[in-house]
């Protein structure tokens, strides 16, 4: 006998109130709030894009506020950035370091997280050591001495090796791996699969969401990092973030802009600085939408211990 489902309008609601359909007033209020928030978020973007396309005279005339399209758009700032080849080369370096660094980071983190997600001899000691790095850092000078002593000065490895495994990303993956049922692993082992085969054929295919999240974290970290490059690399090897930062900070004296630069001529370069911000943002804006659907799911999955 089939069960008749009563019509929706008389069906008792078992859903939470916030999942109920909104009335017109509430819907309108929500739309207004969201539109206002969106405009507030988009305003600085519009300002930066507009300023990057404006001439110096127009920027001065409008006191730095050029929303969207200026009256006399020009690509002079972008031409200036990409002339000379410095930014192009830096971009290639950043792409290389991000790709290689993210791959190396992932391999190391996955291996460590999987190994420590299973009971192994000495596992607790290694786990505590990894977690300790989240709480205490050696500081700038000891890290510098260590990297120099390892012979990594002025090499791209100095950007990758010191931060090879992030404790936070390790925890995200480890927690996920721990939630994989032992029965799955045991079944695979009964079929003759070794640890590597279990990892690659069973565990990793189930871990797409946290892997995407960890990949994003590492990739964005590599793309934006500049401080280690400043300490360890010659200017000919600077990644994009550091080159663009030096353009943005042009003319800034030591200690910031508290007193005028008595000794140095400081040119007006707001258009250039805005173009730099746009150039730095574009690659991340291109990549992020493809990983967004994994982002929330992955973070929550890894964060909640089962």
């Amino acid at each position, binding site marked *: 006998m089939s069960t008749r489902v009563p019509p929706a309008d008389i069906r008792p609601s078992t859903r939470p109130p916030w999942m109920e359909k909104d009335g017109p007033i509430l819907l309108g209020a929500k739309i207004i709030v969201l539109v206002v928030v969106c405009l507030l978020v988009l305003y600085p973007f519009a300002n930066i894009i507009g300023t990057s396309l404006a001439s110096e*005279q127009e920027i001065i005339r409008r006191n730095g506020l050029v929303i969207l399209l200026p009256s006399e758009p020009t690509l002079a700032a972008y031409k200036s950035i990409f002339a000379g080849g410095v930014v192009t080369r830096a971009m290639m370096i950043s792409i290389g370091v991000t790709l290689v660094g993210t791959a190396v980071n992932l391999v190391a983190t996955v291996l460590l997280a999987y190994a420590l997600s299973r009971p192994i001899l000495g596992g607790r000691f290694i786990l505590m050591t990894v977690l300790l790095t989240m709480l205490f850092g050696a500081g*700038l000078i000891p890290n*510098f001495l260590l990297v120099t002593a390892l012979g990594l000065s002025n090499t791209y490895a100095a950007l990758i090796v010191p931060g090879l495994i992030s404790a936070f990303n390790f925890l995200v993956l480890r927690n996920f791996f721990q939630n994989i049922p032992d029965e799955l692993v045991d079944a695979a082992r009964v079929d003759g699969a070794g640890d590597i085969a279990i990892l690659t054929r069973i565990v990793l295919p189930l871990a797409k969401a946290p892997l995407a999240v960890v990949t994003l974290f590492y990739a964005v970290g590599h793309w934006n990092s500049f401080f280690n490059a*400043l300490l360890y690399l010659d*200017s*000919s090897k600077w990644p994009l973030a550091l080159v663009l930062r030096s353009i943005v*900070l*042009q*003319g800034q004296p030591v200690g910031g802009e508290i007193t005028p630069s*008595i000794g140095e001529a400081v040119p007006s370069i707001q258009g250039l600085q805005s173009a730099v911000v746009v150039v730095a943002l574009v690659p991340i804006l291109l990549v992020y939408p493809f990983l967004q659907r994994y982002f929330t799911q992955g973070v929550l999955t890894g964060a909640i211990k089962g």
Partner: protein
Amino acid sequence: MTYLDPKLKRRTVLGGALSLGALAAGTTLSGCRTSKNTPTEPQVNDVAMPDFVEYDGVKPDLPATAEGAPAGFTAYPEDPKPSVTEAPLDGASMTLMTNIFNALPTPKGQNAAWKAIEKGLGGTLDITIVPATDYPTKFQTTIAGKNLPDAMLLDTTTVDDVPRFLEATCADLTPFLSADKVHDFPNLAAIPTIAWEECVHGNRIYGLPIPRGVTGGAGFVNATMLKEAGVSSPSGVDEFFDVCTELTAPKKNRYAIINSKGNTFLTPLFLLHGVPNSWRLEGEALTKSYETEEYAATLEFALKLIKAGVMVPGSDGIDGQTRKNYFKQRKAAFVYDGLPAMPDYRNSMKGQDVQPFVPAGDDALVWADNIVFGQSVLKKADDDRIRQLLGVANYFAAPFGTAEHLLINFGVEGVDHQRKKGVPTITPKGEQELTAPWTYFTAPKEAIFDPDADYVATYHKAINTMVPMAVPDPVSNITSPTEDKVGSKIAKALTDVRDDILAGRATMTEWEPAVKKWREGGGDKIREEYEQALAGA
């Protein structure tokens, strides 16, 4: 991959961290250590300065002065003569670490100017380029890592005990440059003595100066706006107030003064009131500028200006870039900015008569506060190597009008610059290549150069009026251990109170107690040390 250096034991790592801490807290250790140069007592630096030998290879349109005011040129010699006869490096290489205020230059391999300079030096020049804002961090890590380049820009903001640091780490240049010994390096001899005096620490010459125009000036005035308002450049404090009130028309969005973070507008007011440059010396007695009646009077005057509404509203919170923009938009007629900003204002404000503001009046003065940008120091090495590096410094100190100066500042002709009516005009490629910061190793005496004769004349006249008025800091060549230890900390505490008063968060009644606190916190001890040194000189 190399393995961990067995010498990098726990002690080395801790030692590296502690060395930085020792540098920061160096003053507590300096008292316990005896060394021949590090002063634990105040002393006057009386080492013989390098002889000054003016370069006479180029005749200026407007002459320089013995006090250090720059010469004026409206043309560059068609056929500049070389000032260096022998390539200093002779096949060797040199490493330099210095800061940059501009974008990164084209790398050495593709940089025509850099390659040409290396050819002139007769060796290779590798520069570790560091953005100016990051230079203190890089400087600290470089020192702690004990991996010093041959030459580096000295950063005194991160070193509390500069003489001790220099003695331990850097080459003493006194035997090579003092008195007539500098004649071996004629371009260095053409640097004014006043610049060399900034390079003396612990009574020894350690630094190579990067000279500037002696005074940072008193800001700029838009003379066109004054003319439109029917007023002229003021003489004296009262006239200045009257001119400011005449200029101010809020309904037309026009004001008299643009301020910015740190109350930068105070500097021209200090100069109008005759506030001394750091210290005033009367006989053998020293008075700090904070303690003078003139300083308190300036604060009262500033409050009067604020109350009269002559300042651009909200400008006390703006940054330097916004300050410049406001001035270019003609929001106000007076702004404080360093004199080197003149070309930027001139280029951006065509049709406006922008001039350096020259303080006038019975009490007015200017400070000799821009004698050098900074100084570079050399790593300890044997005498032959030091001479070699000084030869490179001599190359970069080539005066205006020489072949080396043209190459360093304008690059290779046909690549980095073109001659237009005899004037070297930098090409787009040159703009990319010439941001290389070799001018922050050492540099010649400044020169005013522009094909616009009126501009050169105006600027030259202003500088030549101000430099003779420039009041030096009477203790600039004296080392005070207490100043090294606590000077900047107690000064900051006092200027915080000053800024609170101007912002209305405190009243003038709190000024005297704050000055008293400065005295008790170390100011009196600093004064005592300076006076002791002066008395013993």
